[in-house]
């Protein structure tokens, strides 16, 4: 893909669309490209950490650090694939996989108690003590049939979140 030019050809769009499994329409991809170019200020072909941090709403999001690791250095095709979980055409499976990936920071397919604790810490900050967090987690895990030492995999996530109707859609502004 021509990273230096700012014009997308039809061929580029179709390639990106295929890469994200048709979760975005062609118009949405064009909009995303405009947004990508807007964020990628130094036109390096990828968005770096501080370019993401320049979006204030992203910077104050509690999970921004975790998402950083997933999003740093993505080129446009990967950027679109990363955002595809937010499309209204994305399947529930896809969304759950995405959430799993956010938890599974080392990418080994397993989410341990410590990973769950890390995310809960990001979401609650200093407003709950560490012990209380562990207590809460242990309690809800046991209630759902797991223990503190259980390792959760993707299928567990599917089981837990599968029938809850996840609402994770973002409308891509199409001018």
């Amino acid at each position, binding site marked *: 893909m021509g990273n230096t030019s700012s014009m997308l050809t039809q061929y580029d769009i179709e390639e990106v669309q295929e890469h994200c499994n048709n979760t975005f329409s062609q118009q949405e991809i064009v909009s995303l490209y405009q947004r990508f170019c807007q964020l990628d200020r130094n036109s390096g072909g990828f968005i770096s950490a501080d370019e993401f941090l320049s979006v204030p709403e992203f910077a104050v999001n509690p999970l921004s650090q975790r*998402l950083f690791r997933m999003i740093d250095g993505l080129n446009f095709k990967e950027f679109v694939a990363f955002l595809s979980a937010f499309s209204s055409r994305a399947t529930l499976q896809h969304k759950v996989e*995405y*959430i799993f990936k956010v938890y599974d920071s080392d990418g080994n397919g397993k989410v341990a108690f410590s990973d769950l604790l890390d995310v809960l810490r990001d*979401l609650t900050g200093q407003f*709950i003590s560490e012990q209380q967090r562990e207590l809460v987690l242990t309690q809800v895990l046991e209630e759902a049939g797991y223990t503190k030492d259980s390792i959760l995999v993707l299928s567990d996530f599917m089981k837990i979140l599968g029938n*809850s109707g996840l*609402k994770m859609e*973002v409308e*891509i502004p199409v001018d």
Partner: protein
Amino acid sequence: MSKVNSSNMELELYRPNIEDYLPTDSIQEPLGKLKLRDLLDISPTLREAGGAIVDAIERKLSIFFSVYVGRLRVISNLDSEDSFTRCFKSNPPETWNWNVYLFPLWCLGVVVRYGILFPVRALILTSGWIIFLSCYIPVHLLLKGHDKLRKKLERALVELICSFFVASWTGVVKYHGPRPCARPKQVFVANHTSMIDFIILEQTTAFAVIMQKHPGWVGLLQKTILESVGCILFNRSEAKDREIVSRKLREHVEGAENNPLLIFPEGTCVNNNYTVMFKKGAFELGSTVCPIAIKYNKIFVDAFWNSKKQSFTTHLLQLMTSWAVVCDVWYLEPQNMKPGETPIEFAERVREIISARAGIKMVPWDGFLKYSRPSPKHRERKQQAFAESVLRRLEDK
């Protein structure tokens, strides 16, 4: 740098009380215990992050914590959900002079605008000021005893100088709807694009206005001439100012002899493609609200005044070197607060009416965030709220 710091401070002191925006029935006590599902479901936070990356504008007006049956959801935090840059971006018009024959035409246009139109307009404006001052000063000083006559003349003179201003930009303003009349217990609200909104409206009716204290020659005008039509001044950085200002508003509205009060509830200039959230101050005075919609025609000039980028003088000069300022002004039907409606709901309803008439989109944004970027406090607030709900539901067994 110090300017940035002071505006941060301004924001902190002037941040609207968030509890006021909370709809009364939105927080229901959570039913059911906290489940693993609730802690694993980080989709709302992810959605906000995704929305931020994509620069989405959230069209739903759901704010704050809405607790659904058995689940915890953070729908949206007023301050950090949506993209605010869109409302304050001045979209430059498409460049049309990009080829061989259009460019010389454009150059000719520049010559005409700067060389012919601008001097003529400057002349008109200067003579207008001379006429105005030569009438105003005697009236103001000599008729001290005859208040009613003096006020009438001053009103007419202010309308005159505003007409001169409008003429100096070749303003083509079409007014639709019944002209405002001076009655007690009514306020006028309008969407805000630039300070010239006030001049355009003042041309036909002498409104009293509430404005931020400005420095320089504008400040001088505020203290002298605008004071004669009735001008309430406030200072954004003074926290105590709010109570004084609301008291002054109330007094003004109740006085039968005061000029009708014009308020711009957005609190800041927006780029005429969107309206940001209205502040509820104008809507809780217990009076009738008469909406006014103003829409500028972008083909002729972009009238948006980005007060962070340009001084008012530069803005005026820019207008005087454009071809024309063309706009429509609609005076809409007066609205009263419906029984059982909160001031915020009333404000939003009026905003909808104005946006619909002017053909612009509504955005649930707090206009004051223009002065500052979201601080880490936003993140902490979200964390705190989430933490509190988790603990609350834990104890709920």
